[in-house]
């Protein structure tokens, strides 16, 4: 509706503009495009450098000696001290933190996939009482922000004895992921053809059998998008990790890094190396699963 009215007004506005003769226009356009593309690429490259330069200097700083870092004479390391990474790995307790993060991320993602694919399927395909109420609740929950809840979540988890506990943390992470993941899965199922389900139903298969044997195997692309985007979210989560974990051996890597900063006052280059190590998994995930991330962002935001 909006679009068609707008395009009529386009015509109305631009009919007044006299059209230049064809040949002249074509010639001018070719020349203009050359300059335009050069400027365009200058802008694109400048923006890429801006996006990447902090990462570059994180890496260069992490490879310098402390003396070189604080002399401040050169921007690039004169000698690459890879040993900083070994020191960071040991001093920063990174083996423990990274293992914890990996475990929390994998369990949370698995939980989110199970819960949200069940819910998404029900919302997309099944008819039952209270479906609209549930849809409303999901949308309502989406707009309740973390700052409104984290104090009360902490109090609740104390009641369950689940503070400073992986179980409590993972349950909160799963719950936080459910609304967006369910909406993504729902829109995925809505767009799937129904034939196979109907055939399976005619064969007398129950809803759960159809779901587990027919639906889930076909839902792999949707599940992958949800897994990647939620995995990134859990890996990077900080607020609840800060609130819930007291014990260093249970902390995920984001919480562990700030604990490293505060307790041991590490040398700057070691801290930079530890930071760099902590982003290796997300960079790998990003480069491998960029398509899913982009799709997941779009689906999560727009649907």
């Amino acid at each position, binding site marked *: 509706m909006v*679009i068609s009215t*707008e*395009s009529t*007004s386009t*015509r109305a*506005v631009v009919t007044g503009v006299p*059209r230049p003769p064809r040949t002249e226009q074509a010639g001018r356009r070719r020349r203009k495009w050359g300059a335009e*593309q050069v400027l*365009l690429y200058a802008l*694109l490259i400048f*923006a*890429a450098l801006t*996006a990447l330069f*902090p*990462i570059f*200097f994180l890496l260069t700083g992490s490879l310098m000696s402390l003396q070189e870092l604080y002399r*401040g004479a050169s*921007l690039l390391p004169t000698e690459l001290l890879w040993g900083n990474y070994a020191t960071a790995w040991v001093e920063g307790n990174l083996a423990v933190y990274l293992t914890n993060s990996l475990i929390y991320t994998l369990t949370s993602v698995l939980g989110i996939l199970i819960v*949200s694919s069940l*819910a998404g*399927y029900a919302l997309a395909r*099944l*008819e*039952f009482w209270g*479906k609209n109420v*549930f849809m409303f*609740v999901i949308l309502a*929950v989406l*707009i*309740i*922000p*973390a*700052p409104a*809840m*984290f104090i*009360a979540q902490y*109090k*609740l988890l104390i009641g369950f004895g689940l503070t400073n506990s992986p179980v409590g943390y993972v*349950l*909160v992470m799963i*719950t936080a992921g*459910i609304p967006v993941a*369910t909406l993504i899965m729902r829109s995925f199922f809505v767009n799937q053809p129904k034939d196979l389900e109907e055939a399976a139903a005619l064969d*007398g298969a129950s*809803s*759960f059998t159809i779901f587990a044997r027919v639906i889930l195997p076909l839902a792999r692309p949707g599940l992958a998008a949800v897994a990647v985007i939620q995995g*990134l979210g859990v*890996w990077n989560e*900080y607020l609840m990790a800060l609130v819930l974990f007291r014990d260093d051996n249970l902390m995920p890597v*984001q919480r562990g*890094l700030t604990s490293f900063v505060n307790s041991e006052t590490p040398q*700057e280059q070691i801290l930079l190396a530890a*930071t760099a190590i*902590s982003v290796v998994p*997300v*960079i790998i995930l990003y480069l491998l699963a960029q398509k899913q*991330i982009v799709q997941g962002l*779009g689906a999560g*935001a*727009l649907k």
Partner: protein
Amino acid sequence: MTTPTAVAAARRQDLAPRKRWPYRKHAVGLLFLLPATALICLFTLVPFAQAILLSFQEWDGISPDTPWVGLENYERVFGDQVFWESMKNVLAFAVIGFFIGNAISLGMAMAVHKARRARSFFRTAYYIPGVFSVVVIGLMWGWLYEPSVGIINRLLVSIGLEGLQQNWLGDPALALGSVAVTFVWYHWGFGFILFLAGLQDIPAEQYEAASLDGARAWAKFRYVTWPHLVPVTTIVGLLSLLGALQIFGTVQVLTNGGPGYHTMVPTLVIYTEAFTSHRYGVAAAMSVIFGGALVLLALIQLGLTQRRSRS
């Protein structure tokens, strides 16, 4: 023994009574939703309600009793200058993130959309900051802003602009701006990805038609691009606004609210009030006020969108 027909017959018999139960389909649907419902109730709705109750109570974080104190917590919050200062700061972040951040997102999406080569390289590069955690962002930019040996000041020296060196995070006049730069750098890729996807959905014929009509760049933008992007703009606007208002980790790691309270934000005040000062009731009152404002904002924005899409 059991021939296929016998199995089929048995199955049919097995199915028959189940089919007769008229509520089966409702039960199945609700069973599919049970895990999601249980978790959301337990870890979202109950805490949300509990936050409201706790805002009328007093709690030190340890003791089992939480006596009712009426409106005392709220009175305290209303008299708390740091909290209101933090509200002002976060509003500044929101305005900067919303206007500058989204202008960059949209501008760069249009630029990449126009590029003929290496589009996917630029897209990859621009979203990289978005995959980092707030802690990584804080540590990385803390190093860039470091006053004596940080990269930004050293870059200024190496290009002969010593005079522009600053104590980026320590100077009360600059700290908020420095954190805002970090925030925009961190988040513009998100809007960029969505705007780019929106631009790619616009049919090329519409631009061709506009060109044939002699439309210049601005007219094309105003009458073709912009109307198509309205849905994306709305959602990007809402999410970036809510994201900026909830800023926490970046600030905590970069400045911890300082110098003084010049970069203090509400979530950090709430956190400190609870976990450092052990006044959980006051923290809950703050989170009710602040969280309520965020919910209201989201509802207003969604309401406006609905009305716009209906008209």
